[in-house]
């Protein structure tokens, strides 16, 4: 079966690994039904034996016209669709679109609403990172840490379920605030959960992160160094793992993030070099710790008051204008650009999903890797296909 796309055969594509034996090149279709492509990503890989000579990610299998749907519905109706972009970090998506409309329309959010947004978004970031780290372990052949992380993730999901009503697609953050206040005793349970996750981080690290085989598999493998990250506008744990200190929660604080005291971990860490798979994985686990710090502070200092102002209804019209807001989603920089013409529907709602930019590195950076390392690259870049294809 010949693939229906062409892969460039230019000399630039030649891998750094010396090819003393020339063998026939093979074309592999990695996906869309491959176990390690995290969804419906299709990567066409040209290999020499196990060494990747060229690779091209083919996206679009999950394209649902999310932006266009949001533009064709009223403001209130469009919100549930944003959840479905990055379905592992749906609260962070909601936060992004809520902030951009609020900025354009000049809606103030009460402090309690902002803090609740921060708490839920950070819980979402933790469970998303737990999923990503576990999934990466799964790609490396370690099944058990994945399920341990899922256990703590499940507890976090139950907490979010209690306050939002959903398990995966929360639809909690609205224009002007959040849907409901924290139930009784919820904050205490959140802090308890933080302690549980904190206690289990060592377990994950000892079982997976510092395992010799895992170190061998990931240290110095699938390098995405600073210049590559900047060239492809890769953001999130990839960028920070490569040694660039950029986190919008610190650099351009939004939704009261300036109130909290937290660090931004930046690679390289104990092993490997900046920008390799191991550092990206370690980066995520360090970020979990920082997120837990934020959650604890927000729970302790949650101000009283209303959780949202209820200005936006079905018939609400945004004043004409435009706005751009960038937020730090679990996978990187998620930003929305919004134009209103004064009508009931957004005139334009452009989303910049981090996964879409992050996956672009595959095409050039996979050259010269072994097939197993390509899986490490895809796994450690951690994409959500819902967001890539939107």
């Amino acid at each position, binding site marked *: 079966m010949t693939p229906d796309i062409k892969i460039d055969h230019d000399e630039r594509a030649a891998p750094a690994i010396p090819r003393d034996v020339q063998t026939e090149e093979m074309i592999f279709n990695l996906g869309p039904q491959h176990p390690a492509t995290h969804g419906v990503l299709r990567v066409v890989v040209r290999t020499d034996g196990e060494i990747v000579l060229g690779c091209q990610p083919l996206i679009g299998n999950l394209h649902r016209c999310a932006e266009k749907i949001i533009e064709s519905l009223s403001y209130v109706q469009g919100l549930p669709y944003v959840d479905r972009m990055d379905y592992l970090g749906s609260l962070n998506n909601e936060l992004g679109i809520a902030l951009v409309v609020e900025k354009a329309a000049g809606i103030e959010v009460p402090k309690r609403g902002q803090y609740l947004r921060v708490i839920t978004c950070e819980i979402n970031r933790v469970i998303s990172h737990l999923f990503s780290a576990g999934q990466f372990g799964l790609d490396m052949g*370690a*099944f*058990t840490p994945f399920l341990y992380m899922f256990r703590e993730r499940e507890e976090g999901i139950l907490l979010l379920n209690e306050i939002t009503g959903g398990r995966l697609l929360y639809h909690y953050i609205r224009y002007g605030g959040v849907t409901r206040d924290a139930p009784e005793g919820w904050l205490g349970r959140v802090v308890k959960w933080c302690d549980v996750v904190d206690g289990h981080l060592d377990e994950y690290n000892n*079982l997976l992160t510092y395992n010799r*085989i895992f170190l061998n598999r990931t240290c110095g493998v699938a390098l995405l160094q600073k210049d590559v990250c900047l060239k492809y506008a890769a953001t999130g744990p990839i960028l920070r793992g490569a040694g660039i200190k950029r986190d919008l929660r610190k650099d351009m604080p939004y939704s009261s993030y300036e109130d909290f005291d937290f660090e931004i971990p930046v690679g390289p860490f104990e092993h490997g070099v900046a920008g390799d798979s191991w550092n990206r994985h370690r980066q995520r686990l360090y970020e979990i710790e920082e997120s837990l710090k934020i959650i604890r502070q927000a729970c302790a200092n949650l101000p009283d008051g209303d959780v949202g102002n209820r200005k936006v209804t079905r018939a609400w019209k945004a004043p004409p204008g435009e706005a751009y807001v960038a937020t730090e989603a679990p996978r990187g920089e998620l930003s929305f650009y919004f134009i209103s013409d004064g009508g009931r529907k957004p005139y334009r709602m452009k989303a910049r999903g981090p996964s879409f930019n992050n996956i672009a590195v595959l095409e050039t950076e996979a050259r010269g890797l072994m097939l197993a390392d390509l*899986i490490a690259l895809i796994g450690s870049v951690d994409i959500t296909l819902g967001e890539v294809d939107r």
Partner: protein
Amino acid sequence: MIAAAQPVSTAIADFLAELVGMPPNWFFSAIAMLLVATGVLMLVVTPVGLGGVYIERKFAGRMQNRRGPNRVGPYGLLQTLADGVKLLAKEDIIAPSTDAPLFRLAPYVVFIGAFTGFVVLPYAPGIVAGPLDVGVLLFLALIAFETIGIVMAGWSSNNKWSLLGGMREVAQVVSYELPLGIAAMCPVIAAGTMSLNGITDYQGGGGIFGWLILRNGYWAVVMVPAFLIFYVSGLAAAKRAPFDLPEAESELVAGFHTEYSGMRFGMFFLPEYALMLSISGVTSVLFLGGYHDPFGLSGPGGTFHDVWWWGLLWFFLKTTFLFLSQICLRWTLPRMRIDQVMYLCYKVLLPASLACLVGTAALRLL
């Protein structure tokens, strides 16, 4: 076992001859032997298939804080049987572009290779199917034989993932034959025989310090490393994690058995457990004293000398322990990469095993 089987097959041959009304001849003996062999095979395959798969799944479940199979039968004991029935009932797909004869043949080659290993194992005093003088050699040969089946499967599937899986299998298992064989030579040199029975007998008496791994205390210097090398190489030969590259799920979809379905897949699935068990058995014979207990009761002059159930018990315990340790390792470790597997073989295990060999020879001369 062979002692018990012979009168049975003679009786069956006589019965068949009488049924047909002809004098007993070679034809009836052959049929009777086939029947008996099938019966013995079923006796081996059923517990290995049902037990091995069940234990693996239950252990995996509990190690991962799950429950494992618990729906079919008490404690899920019949789950594997249900899976077997399902596999039998499924469509047997042979894609038109496959090399059909090889594709059909491959599972049986693997099956035979994995299950024949049980022939040479001494389970207890007097219970051994084939007390060969070159048991160790036959066992090593059978592991290589199984590889052929897997390469056949990988090649004939006409699937690139299968091909890569098959190629990885060749590279891996053929390489690991070297440290496996050399590490196996250490007990052979120490005991002075290649027969597994002979090696077991050599370790009788003296309890735990009669076993080769700790023989007289000082033998541990060479035998513990040799045991570890044999164990790790055995993992690689049985394609167990962290050496499960030929079927690396997250890389090669399902590796060499990507194209197989139904019972043909089952024919790849069961031998894995058979191979694990037989390698565990050989390890326990070579290093852990086979059917001898650690208290010296089964040695010459002991209370339980030549008592078959006592020996069987200890052989079973040792083999099960090794088998379970393989399962625990699988659910703990990530997978290696093919070049790292090769590195481990040629730069770590091979030199270390050669050092052990030289050390054993030196100790033997002392």
